[in-house]
């Protein structure tokens, strides 16, 4: 569960004028280049706008290398010099989730979006947009902190709080291990949330005279009330499956049946189809529902 990495900073200064950065439009004909349409936004809350770049085609490109080429040239097809498109990336092997964006309208990681396949599906052009369910920081960089706030809310960890050697923990069945392994592949990228029609964007603007602390508190409260999302529900399943984690299962189930809990799921089931790790998210939701019902009945009748 890596946090988003540092942003790719403006790398334009000094790189202009290099031979590779001066491709004329005549050279760049359709066969050995393609267009990249990017939905840009200069900062939080500002209006977004489309911009088109031409990128020379090279073997085995992915969308990260495309963005690197765009940063290198930083010039639109109209020949206007612009600030390079900002994006995030980290692992470059689809395990960190930092480069998640909408590529040809579909949410996925840029690092494993291969240009050859994208152009085979849609010749000549690739469209890049930031995720729509998170506030845009700049261009393709979004603030995904709500993903991690949801994990904190459901206590997605095994509490081990002791100075003493407690000995070996309880054993876990092979069956549970195999299911837990599926859930443990989550990289908190947010694809399931982006595709979920029940997960709505929260974007607050800090008011004039509002302190940073007050603004944070308001944002935390908005996140607390809003839908957890499929990823956090699956993590509840993961940690409630764990023999030691299950000792605090009721705390997680309290969150799951509280405001913004599992009840908001509308069974559209897009989450499981867009999950890059193939996590059985709908199974997690159905199992979480079963646990939630049992939990509420137990609470009602003090069982």
């Amino acid at each position: 569960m890596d946090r988003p990495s540092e942003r790719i900073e403006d790398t334009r200064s000094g790189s202009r004028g290099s031979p590779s950065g001066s491709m004329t439009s005549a050279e760049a004909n359709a066969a050995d280049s393609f267009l990249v349409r990017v939905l840009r936004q200069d900062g939080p809350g500002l209006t977004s706008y489309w911009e088109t770049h031409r990128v020379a085609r090279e073997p085995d490109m992915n969308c990260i290398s495309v963005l690197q080429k765009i940063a290198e040239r930083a010039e639109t097809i109209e020949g206007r010099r612009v600030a390079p498109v900002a994006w995030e990336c980290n692992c470059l092997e689809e395990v960190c989730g930092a480069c998640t964006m909408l590529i040809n309208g579909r949410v996925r990681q840029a690092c494993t979006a291969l240009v050859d396949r994208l152009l085979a599906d849609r010749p000549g052009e690739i469209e890049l947009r930031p995720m729509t369910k998170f506030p845009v920081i700049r261009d393709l960089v979004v603030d995904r902190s709500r993903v991690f706030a949801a994990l904190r809310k459901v206590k997605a960890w095994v509490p081990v709080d002791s100075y003493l050697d407690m000995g070996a923990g309880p054993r876990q069945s092979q069956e549970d291990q195999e299911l837990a392994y599926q859930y443990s592949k989550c990289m908190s990228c947010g694809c399931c949330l982006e595709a979920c029609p029940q997960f709505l964007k929260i974007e607050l603007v800090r008011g004039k005279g509002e302190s940073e602390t007050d603004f944070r508190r308001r944002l935390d409260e908005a996140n607390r009330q809003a839908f957890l999302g499929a990823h956090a529900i699956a993590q509840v399943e993961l940690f409630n499956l764990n023999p030691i984690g299950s000792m605090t299962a009721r705390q997680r189930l309290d969150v799951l049946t509280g405001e913004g809990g599992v009840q908001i799921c509308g069974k559209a089931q897009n989450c499981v189809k867009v999950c890059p790790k193939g996590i059985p998210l709908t199974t997690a939701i159905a199992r979480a529902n079963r646990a939630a019902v049992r939990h509420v009945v137990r609470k009602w009748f003090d069982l």
Partner: protein
Amino acid sequence: MEASRLTSLFGRHDFAIRRLHSLLGLMPIGGYLVFHLATNAAIIDGPEAYQHRADQLHKLGLTTIVVLEWSLIFLPILFHGIVGLMIVSRGKRNVLNYPYADNWRYTLQRLSGVVAFAFIVWHVFDLHGWLRWSWWVENVARPLGGARFMAEEAPATASAAIGRAWWVIAFYAVGVTASVYHLANGLWTMGMTWGLWTSQAARRRMNLPCAAVGIVLLVVGLGALGAMVRAGRLSNLPDGAAGPVRSAPAPAADHASPRVLGSAR
């Protein structure tokens, strides 16, 4: 402040409210839909059978009918419908971007819910009049074209109301289809809501029974609608070739008369 307090009340009890919404959809609303469509289907056997069924129901007596229809039909549907509209308003449908079969089902569940709720509110006013209170029926419902159904003249009044215009027939067909889809797909989603079918294989297996329930109900519902429209057409023949729609005499005066509270008839 009032609005935010209401929101927080709804938020704190969100789980209970949505589970109640789900439960009411099955019982009594889903159960009543099955019962209602099956009762309607008596018209397929002819006007006498339909009148007989209406008489059987109205033997319960006015007070029992009012208590049952409000507690088991109107209030549950109002709760289910209003909470349903809130659920629809809190979703952002995206089926054009993610055109998966399950996402279509999700979208249609919301569309059919809104259509069915609008249809039911109109349908109950049109035939029933909403309230069995004579002042309301005489001064509000009838002047506005509602309360067309009369249990003593069940086949004649129902077929006249439903067959009075092409758009009424079409609205009935759409309303029945939307209600049946909403129930059949709702049965399936309910299994996930309550954790009855959790594995992917179990969820796939349950598609078939839920679809079968929907298809049977749709055939029964639309069959009854067709028979009702046909019954109305036959009774309008100038020579009365098919006989009067209302052929069975009222079984007893005390059952046939007043079905409206405070009526002087």
